[in-house]
């Protein structure tokens, strides 16, 4: 191969292989670009927009934009982190997130990223959508209140499990997650608690039952160190979280 190509990320050179996205290259170099819907094991979805960076002056999603030699990429600037904070606030008010009572607290990428971005309040008025939980499955609970529509479960079920248990349905602010059965109940699908999709959710929607607070708060994934440290090594978030 020819010489390694590089682009600059907040002024520091990052090497990349042809075909890599800015996110992939940054991750491989141990550099953190905030993200929610991106996961190293799955194809990019590009919907949360947390990873928005400024590349050669233009705002682009780092998880979908191809790295180019010599590209100047801004990542952790006050302007971009400010936008990210607003995006996070949008995600918080759109759903029903009561972190203190959430089993995912401390293992939640949304919460950890919000801390990291210095988000102190949800800022906007809450939407309080009505999203009933699905407790039909013997081993797994679906609490849709916290769904951020990242489609990681959709991709994991389709691409890793070969099952298509989940899909995103509806439109606009009424977008929502559905499961693959006429009854609308997870128990009636071919979902298994051992599926990759069972352990991929970055927030607290897809949760194992009867495992409430097995790891005490204070010793969870994002307790010892922030997301920018815990998540830079290309590890599988969900396995860490268990």
């Amino acid at each position, binding site marked *: 191969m020819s010489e390694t190509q590089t682009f600059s990320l907040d002024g520091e050179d990052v090497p990349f292989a042809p075909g890599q996205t800015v996110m992939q290259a940054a991750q491989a170099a141990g550099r953190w670009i905030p993200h929610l819907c991106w996961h190293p094991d799955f194809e990019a979805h590009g919907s949360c927009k947390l990873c928005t960076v400024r590349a050669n002056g233009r705002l682009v999603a780092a998880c979908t934009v191809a790295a180019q030699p010599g590209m100047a990429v801004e990542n952790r600037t006050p302007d971009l982190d400010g936008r990210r904070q607003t995006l996070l606030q949008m995600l918080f008010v*759109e759903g029903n997130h009561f972190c203190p009572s959430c089993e995912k607290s401390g293992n939640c990428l949304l919460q950890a990223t919000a801390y990291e971005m210095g988000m102190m309040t949800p800022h*906007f008025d809450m939407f309080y959508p009505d999203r009933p939980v699905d407790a039909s499955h013997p081993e797994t609970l679906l609490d849709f209140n916290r769904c951020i529509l990242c489609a990681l479960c959709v991709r994991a079920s389709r691409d890793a499990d070969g099952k*298509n248990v989940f*899909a995103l*349905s*509806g*439109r*606009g602010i009424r*977008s929502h997650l559905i499961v693959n059965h006429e009854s609308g109940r997870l128990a009636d699908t071919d979902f298994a608690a051992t599926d990759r999709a069972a352990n991929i959710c970055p927030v607290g929607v897809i949760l194992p039952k009867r495992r409430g607070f097995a790891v005490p708060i204070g010793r969870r994934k994002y307790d010892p160190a922030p997301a920018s440290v815990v998540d830079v090594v290309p590890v599988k978030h969900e396995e860490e979280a268990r």
Partner: protein
Amino acid sequence: MPSTLLNPILERHRRDGTRLMQILRETQETLGWLPPEVITAIAAAVGWPRARVQATAEFYSFFHTRPMGRYRILWSDNITDRMLGSTELMQSMCRKLWLEPGRVSEDGLVSVDTTSCTGMGDQGPALLVNYRAVTRMTPQRVDEIVELVRAGTPVLGWPEEYFQVEDNIRRSDVLLGHGLTPGAALAAALERGAPAMLDEVKAAGLRGRGGAGFPTGQKWAACRGAEADVRYVVCNADEGEPGTFKDRVLLTSHADLVFEGMTIAGLAVGASLGLLYLRGEYRHLLEPLETVLARRRAQKLLGAGILGRDFAFDIEIHLGAGAYICGEESALIESLEGKPGRPRIRPPFPVTHGYLGRPTTVNNVETLAAACLVAKHGGAWYAALGTRKSAGTKLLSVSGDCTRPGIYEYPFGVTVAQVLADCGAHEPLAVQVSGPSGVCLADHEFGRRIAFEDVPSAGAFMVFDHSRDLFETARNFAHFFAHESCGFCTPCRVGTALVARLMDKVAAGHGSPYDLEELFKLHRLMQGTSHCGLGNTACNPVFDTLEKFRPAYERRIKSLAFEPAFDLDAALSQARQMTGRDDAAAHLSNVA
């Protein structure tokens, strides 16, 4: 549902999942809605996971997974319909039917609701009854319809004049006055041959009429040059931008020109199939268009061996189902494939990875019609029309406060003032050019020109006189975008909902200068971080009117002049940076 009903529909569409939109629509036309067991049966038949079929059924406004009544009445809710009294007419209809808007009557007979602009801006107030367009609503017509509904008269038996749709062509130029017989332009194109035809389109300087103004010759060349076994031509007849109805007129009275343009595009890019994506609101055009296609096949203008040459091309019509976002080309392609209309990640662009992953050129109806003129008269002839950077003519859909609403064809470069004079606009206060995602022009800007280099337009031209409240216009548009956001990306999904809420808050008199600042903040975020053009432009109407018609907001916010901490101009500085503007109109005086 008995399989005797479902089977013929499935067979007609070869149990092909990519035909899902048509399968769902035809099923619903038979059953009135899409019951859960029917979705299960369709999923099994096309071999898709059920959740995927459900996701498509739940994405589009015109598909129902709950019963919506034997009569589904949807009032077009564009600001121009409202200006013609649609809100009051709808309220009176609901009162007379003992109905709440959006609810189905208890006997399951009828539901009445609003829908996004139905493309009848020159003959509103308009509505759809069971997805058939009704124009020119009056109080008397409301009473008659209430009676017809109560009596259970099938829609097919309703008076024909309800469904009369006029062309209202007020000014013709080379396009509407083309004088071409079917096949004439195609024969000229075949005579030239594909490479020469491409060169002529490039020489003509033809640019896309769908909004972005992309050079058509360059798009076709890229599509032709993309490595592939199969290529496609797509005609974008989604015409969802509120206030636009020129594609409807082309498809009503110049369908041959549109189909011929598609065929010429097929020749130029090396495609043998064209797909016309027709918005669901134009359901009434489906059968007439199919008739034109059948005639063209009989005339050897479609099919194998076109005009005796070694060139095969055919055209299929796909009907949409109420989703503005499907006008965006990659969302349109998703919809053509039977999926929810969510814009794809780009690049790759449709010219290399389009319909079914194959190179696809997506062009607006008017672009393809204009290509016929280029084929017949040559690129140099076409390039001489209009301005240097904007060749040819442009169809404008004129509506709102004027005496002669309808279709006006002008060479590019016409001033806004000229159009206003020609359409009989009385004391115009503002013009919304190119629809909600376009620009709102105030009277000091009426000297500007309709052209890609000045005021680009996808065709809408809505006139507002001095009696109008432009805050209400912006609020109407904010709700339009919130309703039409596909929901894929965070900034637009949540942002459009937040903007609509803030505008309602201001309308209710509860707004503060802080809320205006919030609107600017959302504008700055959505413009740039959104995944597609919808989210990127969704705040334009609010931004434009705040900038140019600030008193319309101030009137509702009593404390504005007494709020020293609020610097509106500073709040705008970033927006100026992003839009690359620093002229006087991009600044706000802080002195109220």
